[in-house]
């Protein structure tokens, strides 16, 4: 049953207004007015999104249609279960990331912060727009808005390296965006509608397998680039040039998750399990995901730069979600959706720790971070906790989602994927635990580190005898770590994200067995 209400539209527009206000007041006003606007917008948005959760849990959806944007297609927002999960994660983490980026920016004395916060807000509005889009065209509109909004963030430092990585980012995303556009136009012409329908509105026999496969690959191309599936992941490591809150936003909250969400929408809400299965598209997708998981883990091991290592671990983790979706079993879809939540909280903690370390000590290479734990105990503890979560240890959020994906794969009779998932968990351990060991290890080389750190520390505001990160950065880190712990123990804490995942999976597979 759909409730007609303006809430979903308000959730999208709030941060657009915030962006305009920030741009308008911008630099000729004291900085904390700008931060105030950002934070208040974040809080309002989170409240709006979370207020919709109970109704969605009860099985009905909010629907708001602006007007008919193209004959037959409206600019409309519908809050179904899957969209709800992504929106909750995005709006929740936006509060955390804004607090963190205020601390980071202050600590780092960044230039042109108004542009940063405005682009940040537009990014979030397009993310929420993506999650609540009711049809393929609205989805595509916000998807491209996300690309354009993240470009100023990637090129924030405005030096040559940033410019090169910005060009690379644009090349990947725009080309895939145009192919996505062609596929959306083709679907609209062939099927006359592009409304998302749980279980997919494309029925298997309607078009020749070749054409359907081509349509599927064009659409998935759009999502795969943002989700960083292996051949199209090039932009992600080079986007590390951006400041850490941006990498945190890109890799945990907005861009990468939007890619995964796009894959989810395309596979489950456009093609649907039967059509995807019929034209053999899910097998291709699955094999790409498997290749990405294994390859990215091996690369991650060799990366010495902490942020690069985390970037490749993101690529690996995202392919978990894609693998979960392409198994097409109800449990694995539930697991994939919950992994969006789990990975978001875990990865944002890791990135925030990396950012805190960089701002406080100026260190970015893992080899130079020996014995850091003595100086920054809390940051390193949270880093350790999050890396265990990523590896999928029980009692942490990562375990719940991985367990479901493996369960789905087992029931769907794909033992090979199960083996890959288990191997990947071990690999994840292999590239995160050494970092933790370095933190808590001997600090023999800390003497000449402090010399180096001392010069860098001054530059970044930390004093010589640095201790733990500034509170504005420390609090978000602790919050996200605790939340990931809580989600691990009780997946249904707070906005019942796990139940939402189950509802969505049921609606997609037409009411399969649900686990408690």
């Amino acid at each position, binding site marked *: 049953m759909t409730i007609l209400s303006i809430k979903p539209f308000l959730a999208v527009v709030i941060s657009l207004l915030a962006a305009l206000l920030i741009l308008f007041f911008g630099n000729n006003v004291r900085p904390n007015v700008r931060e105030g606007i950002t934070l208040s917008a974040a809080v309002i948005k989170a409240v709006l999104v979370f207020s919709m959760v109970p109704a969605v849990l009860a099985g009905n959806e909010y629907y708001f249609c602006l007007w008919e944007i*193209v004959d037959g297609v409206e600019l409309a927002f519908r809050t179904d279960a899957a969209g709800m999960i992504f929106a909750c994660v995005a709006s929740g983490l936006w509060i955390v990331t804004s607090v963190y980026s205020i601390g980071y920016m202050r600590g780092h004395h960044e230039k042109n912060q108004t542009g940063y916060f405005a682009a940040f807000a537009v990014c979030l509005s397009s993310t929420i727009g993506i999650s609540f889009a009711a049809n393929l065209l609205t989805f595509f*509109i916000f998807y491209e808005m996300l690309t354009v909004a993240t470009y100023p963030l990637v090129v924030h430092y405005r030096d040559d390296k940033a410019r090169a990585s*910005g*060009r690379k980012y644009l090349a990947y995303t*725009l080309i895939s965006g145009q*192919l996505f556009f062609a596929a959306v*136009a083709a679907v609209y*012409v062939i099927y006359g509608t592009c409304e998302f329908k749980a279980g997919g509105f494309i029925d298997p026999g309607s078009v020749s397998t070749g054409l359907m496969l081509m349509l599927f690959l064009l659409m998935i191309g759009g999502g795969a680039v943002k989700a960083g599936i292996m051949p199209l992941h090039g932009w992600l490591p080079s986007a590390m040039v951006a400041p850490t809150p941006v990498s945190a936003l890109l890799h945990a909250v907005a861009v990468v998750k939007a890619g995964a969400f796009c894959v989810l929408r395309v596979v489950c809400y456009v093609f649907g399990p039967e059509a995807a299965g019929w034209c053999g598209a899910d097998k291709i997708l699955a094999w790409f995901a498997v290749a990405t998981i294994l390859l990215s883990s091996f690369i991650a091991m060799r990366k010495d730069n902490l942020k690069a290592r985390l970037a490749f671990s993101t690529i690996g983790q995202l392919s978990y979600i894609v693998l979960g979706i392409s198994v097409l079993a109800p449990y694995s879809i539930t697991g994939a959706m919950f992994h969006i939540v789990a990975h978001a909280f875990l990865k944002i903690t890791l990135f925030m720790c990396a950012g805190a370390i960089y701002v406080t000590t100026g260190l970015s290479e893992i080899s130079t971070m020996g014995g850091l734990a003595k100086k920054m105990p809390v940051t390193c503890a949270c880093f350790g906790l999050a890396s265990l979560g990523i590896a999928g240890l029980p009692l942490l959020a990562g375990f719940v989602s991985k367990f479901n994906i493996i369960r789905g794969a087992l029931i769907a009779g794909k033992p090979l994927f199960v083996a890959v998932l288990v191997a990947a968990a071990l690999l994840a351990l292999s590239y995160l635990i050494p970092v933790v060991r370095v933190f808590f290890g001997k600090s023999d080389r800390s003497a000449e580190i402090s010399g180096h750190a001392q010069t860098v520390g001054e530059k970044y505001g930390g004093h010589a005898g640095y201790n733990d990160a500034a509170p504005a950065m420390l609090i978000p880190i602790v919050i996200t770590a605790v939340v990931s712990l809580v989600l691990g123990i009780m997946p249904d804490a707070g906005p019942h994200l796990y139940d939402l995942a189950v509802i969505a999976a049921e609606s997609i597979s037409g009411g399969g067995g649900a686990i408690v």
Partner: protein
Amino acid sequence: MNLFFISHIPVLIVVIPLCAAVLCPLLSRLSPSLGKRTVIVFLFVVFVLSLIQLAGIVQSGEAVHYYLGGWEPPYGVEFVIDGVNGIIIVLVSFIGAMTALFSSPFEEADKNAPFKSAGYYSILCFLVIGLLGIASTGDAFNLYVFMEIVALSGYGLIAIGEEKGPIAAFRYLLTGTIGASMYLLGIGFLYSATGTLNMADLAVRLQRVDNLPLIAIAMACLIVGFGIKMALFPLHGWQPAAHSYAHPAADPMIAGVMIKIPAYAMFRFFFCIFDSSLPMMKTIFNIIGIMAVLGILYGSLKALRYDKYNKILAYSSIGQVGYIALGFAIGNFYGIAGAVFHILSHAFMKTGLFYTSAAFKYRYGIHYTDRLGQVYRKMPVTCGALVVLALSMIGLPPFAGFFGKWYLALGAIQNGQYLYVAVLIISSLLSAIYFFRIFEKMFMGEKTVSEPAAPEEYYGYGKLTGKTEVPLQMLIPIVSAALMIIALGLGNSFIVNGILRTTIMEVL
């Protein structure tokens, strides 16, 4: 009172600015800027009239016929206003009024050359009249006379432009005259076959003509004539120089609207007069399609090579006119709707971009993109509008450019012409390259824009005032162009379904 002037609106839209243009030299004799103000005020009045007219057409649903001189159509000249040219008249009058307002800082009425601003304004007003005339006339020869007026005022506005203006104007004069004569030849052939000049009458009597080679040659002449006026690919020789050296304040009108209205006239001829059952229509559409595809690729590729801001925009215009011709080549409802919608959206985009180019020239005398470094700190509003317009040119969703492409893509896929879809994608990627290159230079380049210390290094047109942002008369058009792009983008289904559908359906 309104009963009197409601029924006369079609002709008042053309006659009111005519009085302003004709009396401009006289009025500026009385007081320096009186001529300028009358032209601006009259053009805004015409914009309001065109809105009333469009509202009337949308409500009543059928076309408005106005018999000039009181004679019934085949004997006298008549104006026919239906959905398609109703919206185009609104477009022309809106951009005409905005350009007239935009050029007031450029044409400060100074004592020693009183005629300079009066002459400029009367030529600009004639350009608007010519375009309004082409859009509203229903008579083939009358269209030729209006094209001649548009051409002549084009030569004038280009000739008083920058350093290579006269040469560009002279080349445009030669090619423009060949174009107009080819059009006249085309009408001559049609007249010899049917004996009438009224378009509706022509369409009726052409069905009875079985002399196919004659119609084929007439179509060829018309394609060449319209092609030259539209700067379609192989006939675009005059366009890059003309658009980059024209008078900066009139350039938006020339580049934005002047090369679009012949495209509408082409639609009027090839869809309303020649019925699509003619055997050679398929080949004609294929020829136009090939010209369009080559034009799109040529325009986008050439624009990559240039560094002069106007040259980039001029070459991207060749590409975008290719889009419109592509829409006509596709031929089904979506194709034509896409082409007409692209006429509207591209007119606003290109006009807006040339406004920003003129603003940069006015304030800092910037002609080349690599002197645009950090200009957004000095001129935030202009650069904000530039970002919106450029993103729409690339074809990114929330803006109008995307929906133009959307309809073209739908039409092409319906016809199974996947080459056209591929060309649409390639050209928007190419335009992404050169527009983002401009963004890089503007937002990330090192600071090249500085307040001129001594007056002599000041190349800007305007007087050396302290202000950095352009005066208000220039800001309003820039911002309105950007807002119209957003409004067109989000409101495109109202235009395509509400206004264009009835007319295009009749034609198909």
